[in-house]
């Protein structure tokens, strides 16, 4: 990948602190042909946002050590080259307030844990298809 703003074709930035959950997501999406970049906390996630090329999609857990998902979402949207990258929120907190707040900050979709794995795969593929970088590379 280059520095022209195009994202890595079919890559996902997975920000998830639970080993079990991350292991399953990595398996599901690696099998679909995605390259996975995995951050386990807010600090590592911020470092990846600052350093790696644009992914096709960001999967973002809400509850993380050091920085929560909403803070990271705001940082993603404030970074010009990432401002249109689709973000899927993964949350155990399905309350309306949290979800509305996430959409206000620019989330594209959300899934409440526990979730249907195959449904998540389909939703991520749909988001990846609409990702500006993916279209540019297609």
């Amino acid at each position, binding site marked *: 990948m280059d520095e022209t703003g195009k994202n890595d074709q079919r890559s996902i930035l997975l920000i998830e602190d639970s080993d*079990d*959950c991350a*292991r*399953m997501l990595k*398996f*599901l999406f690696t099998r679909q042909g995605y390259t996975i970049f995995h951050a386990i906390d807010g600090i590592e996630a911020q470092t990846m946002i600052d350093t790696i090329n644009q992914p096709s999609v960001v999967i973002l857990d809400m509850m993380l050590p050091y920085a929560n998902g909403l803070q990271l979402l705001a940082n993603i949207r404030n970074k010009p080259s990432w401002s249109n990258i689709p973000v899927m929120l993964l949350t155990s907190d399905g309350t*309306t*307030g949290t979800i*509305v*707040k996430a959409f206000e900050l620019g989330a594209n979709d959300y899934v409440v*844990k*526990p*979730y*249907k*794995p*195959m*449904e998540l795969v389909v939703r991520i593929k749909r988001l990846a298809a609409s990702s500006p970088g993916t279209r540019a590379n297609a």
Partner: protein
Amino acid sequence: MTLHSILSDPLARLAAILGIVFFSFSVILLGVVVLMRLWRLARDRRKRQFIDLWSPIFYESMAETPKTPPGILASDWITFMQLYNSIQESIVGETKEKVNVLARHVGFDRVALKLMRQGRLSHRLTAIIALGNLCEHSAKNDLQEFLLDKSPYVSLLAARALLRIDSQSAMARIAVLCGSREDWSSVGVIEMLNEAGTDTVADPLSMVAAHASPDEAARVLGFLEAAKCTIAVPLARDILGRQGLDDRLTIACIRLLAELAGPEELPVIRGYLQHHNWCVRLHAVKALGRLGSVDDEADMISLLDDENWWVRFRTAEALANFSFMTMARLLDIKTRVSTKAQEVLTPFAATHPFRSKVSM
């Protein structure tokens, strides 16, 4: 001075013997610690290897059951059970049953039953969760016995497992226990009821709330409220109509009405604004804050002078949070009330513009 001459002294000999004994003991102790550490590292490595091997097999099983899954050593079943539970707790829908097909295929149902009956407490608890996830009907009798276990962990997990296996037949008995088992974690019970669904839990819980002692009925009404069982609204209204009602039960009914009913219940709630127990007045005020209208403003303003600080505070909060309340209106109220009332209104008046913007 030679070693021989030193050891000829009885005291020196005793000191030497003691020194050798303690040194040997320390060496043995160090050896044991090192061995235990090595054993632990080997066990953790074995566990990681097992998880690395079996996780993909489980994930594959969500699409198709592997035809020849690898064998499992007796010492690995606990890790298998933990991995299985972890995966089952993170997914919903038909995929859960596909994972169960794999678990049964490798004989996990029989192993889980054995561990529930014979294992130590931590293994038994994990096995109870696993049998619930497996929807293992042959475990029902054992689980029903565990419902009465003196350990709240065992009994609550058994209740949850039974609800997963056969919610319709288990709920009547579990509803009674929801009232009587004060040692059950409220959060755990609410999670269990929400998972079972309103349709399953509403009627049995309402039956218990209608006939139980005041303490138990209050507890069950709390669960009906948390599980969003709107079917319990008429019941709460009926209970409030009883003579000489226990205050805890009164509060539980008011809370339920505030959470699940509409403005049609306002006349009932307004009747408790002058109750002799300040806790009841407080919950009536909170309910009015949720359901009330501009018609309640005058009553609320008079409660800003209540003898109890908490009632005054919650009244000020409820007034400030009314949808029709504006900054100007709040400041106007502040000019018309006593100094005591002004004290509780001040922080809400000061933060009102900010709260209006951030509230969702």
